C-alpha cells in the first residue's frame, strides 16, 4: 500500500511541527508542511498530496480563502481538504462544511485521535 502524503498548512510553527510529528508517528504518513496559505497552494499544486490539513486562521491568507483557491485550481481541486480550527462551536464548523471542505478537525488534538479523525473523514482504512 502506497504511503499517504498529507500537506499540513499552518502559520504557527509549533502547531505545524506537532501536527507533522503526530501524523508521521501515529499513522506513518508522509507529511509536507507549509507556513502560509500561498506556500500551501504552491506545494499542493507541485506535490499533489493525497490530502490537505489546512489551518483556518492565518494572517495573510486564511484557511477558507486558501481552500477556495485550491478549488479554483484544476490541479488541486480534487485534493480532499480538512480544515483545522480552534473554533469548537458547531455553528462555526457548519460554516466551514458549507464551504465544501471534506471535513473539520478541532484544536487541540491528540495524535491518534487526529489520525483517526482524518482516516474517518477521508475513508482511509
Amino acid at each position, binding site marked *: 500500500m502506497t504511503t499517504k502524503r498529507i500537506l499540513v498548512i499552518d502559520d*504557527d510553527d509549533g502547531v505545524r511541527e506537532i501536527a507533522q*510529528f503526530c501524523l508521521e508517528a501515529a499513522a506513518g504518513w508522509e507529511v509536507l508542511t507549509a507556513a502560509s496559505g500561498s506556500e500551501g497552494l504552491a506545494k499542493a499544486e507541485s506535490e499533489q498530496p493525497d490530502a490537505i490539513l489546512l489551518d483556518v486562521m492565518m494572517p495573510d491568507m486564511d484557511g477558507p480563502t486558501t481552500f477556495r483557491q485550491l478549488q479554483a485550481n484544476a490541479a488541486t481541486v480534487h485534493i480532499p481538504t480538512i480544515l483545522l480550527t*480552534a473554533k469548537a462551536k458547531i455553528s462555526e464548523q457548519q460554516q466551514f462544511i458549507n464551504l465544501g471542505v471534506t471535513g473539520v478537525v478541532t484544536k487541540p488534538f491528540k495524535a491518534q485521535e487526529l489520525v483517526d479523525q482524518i482516516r474517518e473523514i477521508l475513508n482511509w482504512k
Partner: protein
Amino acid sequence: MKRAIESNIATSRWGLALLYLLILICVSWVSYHSTVTLLERVNLERHTRAEIAGLQEILFEITDAETGRRGYVITGQEQFLRPYNRATSTIEKQLKQLQQRFSNDALNEQRQFNELKSMVIQRLSLLEQSINLKKQHESDDDIQIALNAQGKALQEQIRALITEIQNKKGQELRLKAEQSTVQATRTIAVILAGFCLSLTIFLWVYYLLSRQIIQRQQAEAALAKSEKRLRTIIEAEPECVEVLALDGTIQEMNAAGLAMMEANDLQQVIGQPACSLVTPEHRDSFTALTQQAAVGNPGILQFELVGLRGTRRWLETHAVPLRNEQNEITGVLSITRDITAQKQAEVVLKKAKDELEIRVADRTGELVQANHQLQQIAATLLEAERRWRSLLENVRLVVVGLDRNGKLEYVNPFFLELVGYTKTEVEGQDWFKTFLPPHQRSRLQNSFLELLEQEFYTHEQSIILTKSGSERLIAWNNTLLKNLQGDVIGTLSIGEDITERHAIERMKDEFVSVVSHELRTPLTSIHGALNLLSSGLVEAQSDKGRRVIEIAAENAERLVRLVNDILELERLEAGKISLSKQSCNATELLIKATDLMQVMANHAGITLSVSPQAIQLEADPDRIIQVLTNLLGNAIKFSSRGSTVWLTVERVYTHLSPPYPVSHEQKAKPLLCSVDVACQQDIGFTGTPTENGKALVEPRPRSECLNSFVLFAVKDQGRGIPADKIESIFERFHQVDASDSRKKGGTGLGLAICRSIVQQHGGRIWAESTLGEGSCFYFTLPTELGIGGNP
C-alpha cells in the same frame, strides 16, 4: 248625541212647516186678490154693459116715442100715444138708473151723460110740445114741421152721443176684458207655482222626516249597542266601577267591585252604605269624598277596605258626580282599583330608597374622595406629561412619530441632531424614502403595514441615512398611536443608536475569536507535544522528542505571556489597575527605559540614541517605562542590525483641553494614532504635512497656548508599517504580520497595552511610518504645569 239629533230634526221640521205655511198663505193671498180683482172687473163689465144697454134702450124708447108722436100727430088717434107714454115713463126710469150708474164713472162720462140727459129731456119736451099742439088742435103745420126738424136734429145728436158713449164704453169693456184675461192667467200661474212649490216642499219635508226617522232609529240602535258595549266593558273592567246614590249607598257595581268587596252577588251590597266596609281610620275621608263628589267636586282617595270575608285591601278610588240629561247630579260614580301590591311595593321601595340614600351618601363620600384622588392624579398626570415631554426632548434616544401613511409627524431633538436635519426639513417627509436606504425600504414598509394592521409591537433594527449620507444603525421599539376612540392613527418608535455598540460588539466577537485562537494555538502545540511524548509515539530522548519538548516549552512560555498580557490589558481597560502617579522627570524615565533595553539592543546590534530633557511630569513612572520599553523593544525587533533607534522627549503646547477633541464619531473608534494638520496647529506644532495629510511634529512654543504636554518619540529605521495598518496596530492582536508575534516573541497586545496606559495618563499615542524607511511612535503626557505655565 241623540238629543242633538232630535233637536236638529225638530228645528228642521218646524222651519219647513213654517216655510210651507208661508208659501200657502202667499199663494192663497195671491189667489184671493186675483179673484177679487176678477169679480170687480166682472162687476165693472156688468155695470158698463148695463150702461150701454140702458143708453141703447133710451135710444129705442125715444125712437118709439117719436114713432108714437108721429102717429098721433098724423092720425090724431090716441092709441098711437101708448108707445109714447110708455117710452117717456121708461126713459125717465132709465135716466134715473143711468144717472145712478154714471155717478160712479169718470167726470167726463158724467158730463156726457148729463148732456145726453138734457138732450133726451129736450127731445121729450119737443115731442110733448108736438103732441100738445095736436091735442089743442092747433094744427099748424109749420110749427109741426119746425118741431119735427128740431126734433130730428136733436134725435140725431142724441143718437150720435149715445153711439159715442157706447163706443167708449165698448172700448173700455174690451180693455177690461183683456185685463181680466191677463189677471186670470196670472192667477192660474201663481196657483200652479204655489202648488208645485208646496208639493216640492212637501216632498222635501217628507224626505227629511224619513231620513230623520232612519237616523233616529240608527242612533237608537247605536246607542243601544254602545250602552251594551259600555256595560260589557264595565263588567269586564278589572277596576271596581260603582254608582252611589247621593246618600252614599251603593246602587250599582261591576263584577270587579263585587270581588273587591268579597260579595257573592250584587244584592249583598245594593243599598248598603259604601263606607261600611272602609276601615274606621279612612271612613271619614271616604264619606267626605263621596259627599264632595255629590255636590260636583270630583276627588281621589287612597284608603283601606275590609272585605266581607275579612281581607284587607288598599284601594284607590276616583269619585266623580254623575249627571242626568238635565245636568243634574243624580249620584256619584266611583272607580276604584286595588293598589295593595303598589302599597306593598312602595313599602319595599321606601325601604330600598332609604338604603339607597344611605348608599348614595356613602358613594358621594367615596366620589368626593375619588374626585380628590382624580385631581391628584390629574396633577400627577400633568407632571408626568411634563416629565415625559422633557424626557422626549432630552433623551439620548431617537423618537419618531409617523402617521398612517408613513409621513413624519414628530421627531425629537436627538433625532434631528443625529441625522443633521432641521425640524422644518423633516416634518411631513416620507420616512421610508427620506431616511431608509433603498435595500431596506420594502422590508420595513411591510413591517410598518403589519404593525398598523395586526397591531402588534415590533422590535427591529434598521439603518437610517443622515443628511450627510452616513448610516446609523438603530434598534427600534415600535408602538401604535391611537386616538381617543381607539383607532390607530400612526406609530411611535423609540430607537437607540447602536452603531457604536454594534461595532464594539463585532469587535468583541472578533476579539474573543482571536483570543480563542491565540490561546488555543500554543495550547494545541503543548497538548499535542505532551500527547506525543506521553503516548510513546515520540521518544523523549530522541532528537524529535527533544524538539517536541522544546516546542511545548516555547508555547507554554508564550501562553504565559499571552495570558499575562491579556489580563493586564483587561485590568487596564477596566480601570482595575490604579496608576500610582507621581512627579517624575522625563530624562530619568528615558534613561531607565534605555538601560532596560540596552542588552537587547546590543544583542541585536542596534544603537540607541537618547535625547533627554529635564521635563517634569505627573505620571506612573513604571507604566511609562513599560510603554517606552515596549516601543523600544518593537523598534529593536524590527530594525536591522547596525541601525539606530532614537528616543527623544520634548515639551509641546496646546490650548485644547482635553488635548484632542473627541468627536461623536470618534468615541467608538480607536483613537487616531496620528496628528492631522488642524491638530498640529492646535497643539502648537508646525510641521510639513506628509502625503497622507499627516505631519511630522516640530515643537514650537506659542505664547497663547494654555496647556503643555510632554511628547515622547521612538524612531527606528526598520521596515516601516503599511499605511492601511498604521492605525490598527494599536488594536489587540493586530500586528502587521501575525507571525511576528511568534517570530519576535510578542503576544500582539503590546501596543494595545501602551495605548491603554497612555490614555489613562490623559495622553495620546500614534505612529508615523514610511515603508522601507522606518517608523516613529509618539505619545504625549500632560506636564505638571498648569494653565499658562512656562517650562
